[in-house]
């Protein structure tokens, strides 16, 4: 498999940006809204968006069980921002009925940095990705409050009052960031994920 097929969960959010970034990183990228479309992909991206809305639509359109099954079978998944929340086993400051996939053993706090007026840009280094720090864009972003034993912390906020907060993690084939590399044209993280999908196949 030289060109992996990677889906972007297209129920709501910045789907187009992820499709473009994945395509740029060498994948055959396509939106996924139905269980049948999920069957055809080797990996999945859960985009940025409104996590409460995505969580609701995942249930309504019967995508939760198929995605959980594929995750259990080892399908690589990358989530940015709302996607990180969707991959967390525990969510703080979410809606009571909000549920993520059976994903990364971590506790994520929703809108942890504040409201939109607090949204910010800052450099973040990601271990395993060479080169300069990422120019990370945080939009009403979550942070990771606690991680389980199987989770690798890949990146933290480097300075300011939120210094040290975890904003990038990996557990096996599951990858999550609080920020949005899909908005900046920096394809390194998407390449990292495409390689992960290739290796998993």
């Amino acid at each position, binding site marked *: 498999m030289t060109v992996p097929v990677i889906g972007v969960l297209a129920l709501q*959010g910045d789907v*187009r940006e992820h499709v473009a970034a994945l395509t740029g990183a060498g994948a055959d990228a396509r939106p996924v809204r139905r269980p049948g479309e999920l069957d055809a992909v080797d990996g999945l991206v859960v985009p940025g968006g*409104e996590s409460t*809305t995505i969580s609701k639509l995942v249930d309504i359109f019967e995508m939760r069980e198929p995605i959980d099954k594929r995750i259990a079978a080892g399908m690589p998944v990358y989530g940015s921002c*709302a996607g990180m929340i969707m991959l967390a086993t525990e969510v703080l400051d979410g809606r009571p009925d909000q549920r993520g996939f059976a994903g990364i053993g971590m506790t994520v706090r929703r809108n942890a940095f504040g*409201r*939109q007026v607090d*949204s910010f*840009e800052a450099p973040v280094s990601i271990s395993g990705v060479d080169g300069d720090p990422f120019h990370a*864009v945080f939009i009403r972003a979550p942070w990771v409050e606690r991680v389980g034993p199987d989770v690798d912390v890949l990146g933290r906020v480097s300075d300011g009052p939120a210094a040290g907060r975890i904003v990038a993690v990996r557990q096996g084939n599951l990858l999550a960031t609080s920020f949005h590399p899909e908005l900046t044209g920096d394809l390194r993280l998407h390449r990292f994920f495409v390689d992960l999908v290739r290796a998993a196949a």
Partner: protein
Amino acid sequence: MSESTSPTTDATVGTARVKRGMAEMLKGGVIMDVVTPEQAKIAEDAGAVAVMALERVPADIRAQGGVSRMSDPDMIDGIISAVSIPVMAKARIGHFVEARILQALGVDYVDESEVLTPADYANHIDKWAFTVPFVCGATNLGEALRRITEGAAMIRSKGEAGTGDVSNATTHMRKIRQEIRRLQSLPADELYVAAKELQAPYELVKEVAERGKLPVVLFTAGGIATPADAAMMMQLGAEGVFVGSGIFKSGNPAQRAAAIVKATTFHDDPDVLAKVSRGLGEAMVGINVDEIPQPHRLAERGW
């Protein structure tokens, strides 16, 4: 919201990228007008990506007349604490102090809206001067680009709010998309005159001609009352939907709101649309835009 909890230095908050990026995250979603915390909860339960706080929905503004202004801060606070999704609120066109107040209240987006009575008939708000992002209405490409020049981070078609008549939203969406396609077809040396005709900066016109889209997210608004309306607007190129009076002036708001959310996601799937359109009870009664005298048309406010 205090300074001390701000995660970084001032230089990195309120950038064009975080303002425009916020709108990117709302794509494929439905933003619903609400006038009380209870309505905001119904909207969030239905899957809205954000709520728009205002004093009266456009249908009531139209029926009751009078000057329409920013909402009471108590009401906005109530809505902010009632829901966890983003809260937007409307300020009058040109009323930069209302916008300052909304920013201080911590709203996530300000709508400089023609639905309220304009406060300035010459100038819109200088939106670059704010940390909070702005959405503005437009009836055509030139108007959209002028708002972006002033700092708008998101554009919505105006439609004719408070009518339940989708025809003007259709006209505005088609018009904006047509004008973008026309720019794409022009040779480079004709873009200067195109910019003059659009009354918009050349650099912005050139960018639209190259990319085939606005540099910010384009939603639709004004008269959307049914799941089919929302789906049609998505098919006409809207990246998401604002619903105003259409939900809380209908027979069963919760059910209609949820149906419009589903229809927006599966806007191109007639089977899903047929399913979600069933049994919603009465849609808002509506007014034909044609029957509204010209001076009472909201879309003609702003320029």
